[in-house]
């Protein structure tokens, strides 16, 4: 089935004192990929600034802009129209031996290494005892929700994977990081995916408050997406924006600013099924 979704991602900052200059990079543009086609996208920034676009190393569309007039309010609105359908995945039958192949390891090294955010976790189970890597992924998908409870506020955006694992609480970023850590330790290449999740009824025309979301793609013969935070299949309701090694490579808004004490952030994501 193919959906047509309109996505609006709005981020606003309110500062107590003036910001004299800020430089920003937004990764909020859905990407053309397997199971997803971008009809249109626009990024609007207030105060007005010219927006420059480029594709980064991971293939993500980056929109960069700078504001050099003093301001106390900044609003960034990303508006997209995309068509999503179920991801077609190819052969998922790689064996554990296949994953030990030097050529594969060499090629996918970046998705096999730990990072400061995707740090070492030592779970009580052993993924390698599963029959195939695909079984391991499916096992892990279930195990994540047994280990971690979805609880906003228990971690922050700098928390490494082990923190949420030990606290047994976290948000989608943590579910994703922790899953990737365990997969990589078991020798399964895994990457971080960011995007939007439509969690509505599917009714056409209904505006649904969604969220910025993240999930995992694991290589088990081909890249297989799965969503450890809620366990649902990655389908038409997932809009893909960026891929990377961890959150750091895909963060929706990155940048620096000077001045502007005490920043209040407001983020809303809304999705409407058009067709």
């Amino acid at each position: 089935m193919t959906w047509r979704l309109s996505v609006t991602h709005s981020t606003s900052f309110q500062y107590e004192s003036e910001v004299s200059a800020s430089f920003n990079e937004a990764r909020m543009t859905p990407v053309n990929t397997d199971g997803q086609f971008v009809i249109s996208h626009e990024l609007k920034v207030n105060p007005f600034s010219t927006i420059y676009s480029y594709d980064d190393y991971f293939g993500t569309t980056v929109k960069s802009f700078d504001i050099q007039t003093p301001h106390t309010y900044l609003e960034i609105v990303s508006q997209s129209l995309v068509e999503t359908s179920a991801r077609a995945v190819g052969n998922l039958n790689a064996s554990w031996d296949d994953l030990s192949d030097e050529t594969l390891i060499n090629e996918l090294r970046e998705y096999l290494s730990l990072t400061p955010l995707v740090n070492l976790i030592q779970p009580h189970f052993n993924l390698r005892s599963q029959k195939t890597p695909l079984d391991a992924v499916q096992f892990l998908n279930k195990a994540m929700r047994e280990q971690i409870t979805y609880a906003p506020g228990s971690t922050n955006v700098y928390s490494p994977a082990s923190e949420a694992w030990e606290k047994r609480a976290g948000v989608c970023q943590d579910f994703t990081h922790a899953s990737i850590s365990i997969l990589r330790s078991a020798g399964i290449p895994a990457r971080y995916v960011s995007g939007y999740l439509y969690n509505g009824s599917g009714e056409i025309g209904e505006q649904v408050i969604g969220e910025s979301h993240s999930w995992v793609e694991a290589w088990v013969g081909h890249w297989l997406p799965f969503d450890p935070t809620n366990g649902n299949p990655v389908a038409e309701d997932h809009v893909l924006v960026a891929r990377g090694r961890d959150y750091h490579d895909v963060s929706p808004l990155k940048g620096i600013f000077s001045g502007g004490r005490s920043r209040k952030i407001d983020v809303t994501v809304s999705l409407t099924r058009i067709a």
Partner: protein
Amino acid sequence: MLFQALDEFLVNGEPRDVIADLWRELCKIQSNEWITKAKQRDLYLAMQGITFTLSGIERPLPVDLVPRIIDAAEWNQLETGIKQRIKALELFLDDVYGKQQLFIDRVVPKSLIVTSEHFHRSAHGIKPANGVRIHVSGIDIVRDQHGVLRVLEDNLRSPSGVSYVLENRRTMAHVVPELFYEYSIRSVDEYPERLLAALVAAAPDRNPHPNVVVLTPGVHNSAHFEHAFLARRMGVELVEGRDLYCKNNQVFMRTTKGSEQVDVIYRRIDDDFLDPIHFKADSVLGIPGVVNAARANNVAIANGIGNGVADDKALYPYVPKLIEYYLNEKPIIPNVETFDLQEPAALDYVMQNLADLVVKPVAASGGYGITIGPRATKDELKSVAKEISQNPRNWIAQPLIALSTCPTIMEDGSIASRHIDFRPFAVNDGHDVWVLPGGLTRVALVEGNVVVNSSQGGGSKDTWVLTSNESDLKSYPEQAADTLADPLDQDVVPTTVGPDVLPISRMQQQEEQQQQQDLNNA
């Protein structure tokens, strides 16, 4: 030393043919005279303000008064070999930050590159206007115990030392002019003109009159002298990060006239500190937005961002392969034999023979962290073995080389041989790679020391490249008129900065004229 090192001057105690005249002059000078000359040299350096900051203290960089000589034939080989190496590395960088065809063709393992801390993903897709990323390079060269010249290390990011090359020549001419008389030495003074021409050629939009700046971290940086020197000699502004700012993906300079757009930045700041958006966010030395401005080709950054992946010590063993892959040629200057510790057989061999090898951490620079097997204690060997086994990707191993030696003046005025290495400098203007005829010969002042780096208290020598014929004595503008083929180049007029040192033949003529006058007055 384990092996018998070759000497640059003497074979079995007798000077080589090309050294004979120099040796004769050297032997005329008594040790107490050498001490006097050394004092003259120190005074000259102090008055010129030529210093190098070591451990926070400014001090003169001691140039040894015995020059190192390279004859024309050997220089030809070096020059051709360096050009070849730079061309290959340029193609490598273009590939690695672009199509990455070399991974498909299995030339270098992809994992080696993507795990390099200098592989900057923010450089991916950046295509410089004239394709050059290695505008300035310093290729370190040594001569081994069999007399073979080998590349020890590539320096493609911000190689320093060229200002000392120019100043050493002047200092020598000032303190020991008598050594120069019998030799036709190629001038080193063109360097600033050549560098400026290359920077101008790098400007976006083929702007014939671009605004070029030299970006320095500031007065407290150990190489600040060189930054100021080059800016002055090229006639361009010396700026710090806070003098520049980006707006609308363009770079501007804050001047009393208002904002002036900057077209080319010759930056002597590490990538890590260049742009807080893409690199270290707390860096105050850089310019936010400059990387994106370079990506949009609104400014040229020299040397390019991410060059460190090409002078990564872990890539070094593959460079001969890169030359063959990109140029279809055999390397003219060989590497030092190096073991790739990610290969199990090599790792095994190295671990068993640590006591006979030299191991270097990939990440270090300035000669720090090197363990020299035959000199290390059992404990040092054990501890480095542990580190290597934990992280083989971070280490390379090489057999011990007896670096060639060269006679050097000691503190007591005697002459003794000390180990040397050599750093020639090359400038790439997009049409050709020009190698400065000369370079920084570095000498380890302590007997037997093989680590010669200046940050560890080494000294330097003036390096004389001898001419093979009269044409090499021509000054740059004349040479340029002869050799420039591309009509576009004719529009790029090199800034004429008067040479501070007259080419040697003219100096001799002047002296002859003076003598005649004296005779007339007598």
